[in-house]
């Protein structure tokens, strides 16, 4: 069956940084077989890497925690939705701090990943609920070739 848009890929992986390289490369390859350019795929790989790193670092309080990533692939854009299973108060405070960090605050690395994602996306929405569960929704449009 040929690729038909839109379609969805859903992934759940352990809350461990070592999985992220495989996950981001997978997403990049999926986008390339879906006729997105290599440049688009590379930038999307960066987005997936950064949001996954944040989900693991800030949102995996328990050792058994996993991260859920959904990719909705349309002909003209893609959407990422990533959810973690809850961070500690300390981690959530750090995440809030990273979200608010100024773009110039590069030396300390605070908020660098979020800033990169913001610059590469059409929209980015971060929601942290009262259970300290974080979800991030990102939309990225296909670039003109």
């Amino acid at each position, binding site marked *: 069956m040929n690729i038909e848009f839109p379609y969805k890929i*859903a992934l759940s992986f352990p809350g461990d940084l070592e999985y992220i390289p495989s996950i981001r490369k997978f997403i990049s390859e999926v986008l390339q077989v879906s006729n997105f350019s290599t440049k688009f795929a590379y930038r999307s790989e960066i987005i997936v890497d950064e949001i996954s790193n944040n989900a693991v670092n800030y949102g995996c309080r328990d050792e058994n925690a996993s991260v859920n990533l959904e990719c909705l692939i349309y002909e003209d854009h893609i959407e990422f939705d990533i959810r973690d299973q809850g961070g500690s108060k300390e981690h959530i405070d750090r995440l809030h701090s990273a979200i608010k960090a100024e773009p110039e605050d590069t030396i300390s690395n605070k908020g660098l990943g979020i800033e990169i994602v913001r610059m590469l996306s059409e929209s980015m929405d971060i929601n942290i609920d009262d259970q300290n569960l974080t979800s991030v929704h990102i939309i990225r449009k296909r670039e003109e070739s």
Partner: protein
Amino acid sequence: MHQKDLAIEINDVPGSNGALIINFRGELSSLCISRISGTFDTIDYSTIKFVIADMSNVTLVSSAALGEFMGGRKRLVESGGDLVFASLQIDLRSKLNMMGANKIFRFYNDTRSAVNAFRWEYEKHHEHLHLSFPPFLKLVPPIRSLVSRVAKQKGYSNRDSFRIETIIDEVCNNAIEHGLEGANKSIDLKMTINPAQVEFTVTSVSDPEKMQALKAMIKSDEHDLSKLRSDEKRGRGLALIKMLSNELTVDCNESGTSVHVKKLREE
């Protein structure tokens, strides 16, 4: 001279037996040697195999203190265990490397990674990856690359990872090519991996007749690919999976067809 507020706290690893996290806070100077060695003396080495030294709040490690850690590690290693460092600050990590500590100790970026390493190596913990995707053949190469990379990352050899990649390729191709026409439902891939084996369950909505034929093929003893007819592409794929794996079963029910494969680690 006085000790600079060294605090030591010992915690169990939640949900695990046989491992401890020791949180150090302050300076591990030569004045604290007795406290550090005293801490290691309190460990029951008959039950504790793995100690994670959480160094996130440590600002100094003297060579004498490092010596105490080496002593603690030696006692653990003698019973097949280990002592590792987690969450070292960048400057401190560099200084420990200059002391040669990286040749003896493993360093982890955080305690979670260290705990995961313990659970993987000592508790043979299962890790799960779950993927849901539409029945598009073009997606199979990225999927098999993903599975192969995960296997390699978990320490499986190139050879084993390649075999795993071949298995998943064949199973996914089968699920797509023999799916029920018009069903257009997602295919589910569940991967469970531990140090000894990897298991896959691929669930899809399939044509019931084709699934009965598949079950019959799986039950057959025919493993010799050369004896298959040239048009028996599916037979070749199945024969390949059977040869590369240790267990292959098919289960048909209302939710669909599940192909389950188990492959033991060989190298």
